[in-house]
């Protein structure tokens, strides 16, 4: 599969490396050139030598998305640090470029829930953290 990940923060970079290790073709887009270091860290090989792709640009720039390979992406992951950016670019990936699988990281559980109901796949780290705290405190069964 060809996986395009926008936002090489902690989550984005870790998912990128895991996907590459599993043999997928992975392209990463981030506005910060230094975020590249996260892709090199802990693998003992540079991201490029590992045949990973990296593009510097912002997620709303159509040219940057195209350069990063969105037109042939099977999976699009929006994992920048902005919920609204992730929600908007996911919709662009879906509606404009027709990427088959689109997943957005949305910290705010309320927005994550509503957009999920609209058919967008969202992952909310805060939602998971809340659940885990509730379990740890014995507030919910199971």
């Amino acid at each position: 599969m060809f996986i395009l990940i926008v936002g090489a923060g902690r989550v984005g970079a870790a998912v990128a490396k895991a996907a590459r290790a599993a043999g997928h073709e992975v392209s990463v887009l981030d506005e910060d050139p230094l975020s590249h270091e996260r892709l090199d860290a802990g693998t003992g090989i540079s991201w490029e030598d590992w045949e990973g792709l990296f593009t510097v640009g912002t997620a709303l720039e159509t040219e940057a998305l195209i350069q990063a390979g969105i037109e042939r992406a099977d999976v699009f992951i929006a994992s920048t640090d902005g919920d609204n950016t992730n929600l908007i670019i996911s919709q662009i990936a879906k509606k404009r470029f027709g990427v088959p699988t689109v997943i957005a990281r949305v910290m705010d559980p309320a927005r994550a829930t509503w957009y999920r109901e609209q058919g967008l796949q969202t992952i909310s780290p805060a939602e998971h953290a809340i659940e885990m705290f509730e379990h740890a405190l014995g507030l919910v069964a199971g």
Partner: protein
Amino acid sequence: MYVIIAGAGKVGRNLARELISKGHEVTLIEVDRERYLAMEEVFEHAVQYGDATELWVLERAGIQRADLVIAVTGDDEDNMLVCQVAKEKYLCERIIARVNNPRNHEHFKLLGIQPAVSATDLILRLIEHEVPRYGLVHLLALEEERLEIIELEVSAESPVAGVRVSEIRLPEGSLIISVLRNGSGFVPKADTIIEAGDEVLLVLDPGLEEAITQFFSANGRKASA
């Protein structure tokens, strides 16, 4: 009318002031604490502190009963999101979004966020009006309806100068709807003769400007005459 305005920057606060002076009820939402406090001195209860992209903040502002939601923050993603949830989640009938970066205009369109207003585009239109390139001015674009109204000046070299309206073979999808001559306008009839110096208003299908410009300036007219 009840209006919610997201973003109390220069645009947002001046809009709020104008709307309030016209008797409308307004809630201004501002995420920056200091700016909020400054605005509170002016607008009192009409300004609320919070992130307008958070659903509970919009609900607290009473989005369910808003007649109009205007998103004018400095961030295009935020403006798109506020308008999208206003329209699709809270079924607000009228939205207006500000486009900060004109390159993002296409994204607003893609997500059905209309009207989306860009200061850059507005100023470009004004420049066009002041310094008309080929004498063509965009007066109105009805994007949903897929129609445009433009204004063209008829030069002496134009092939339509001195020609009867019924004999002008305009490109398919365009129509002359009005003629401005010596400072006053009228609706032309089939036997009206278009004169050099006339300004004509045309309604057209989008994408025909080039063809219309060619048509009006065709055949040997000097490029910048």
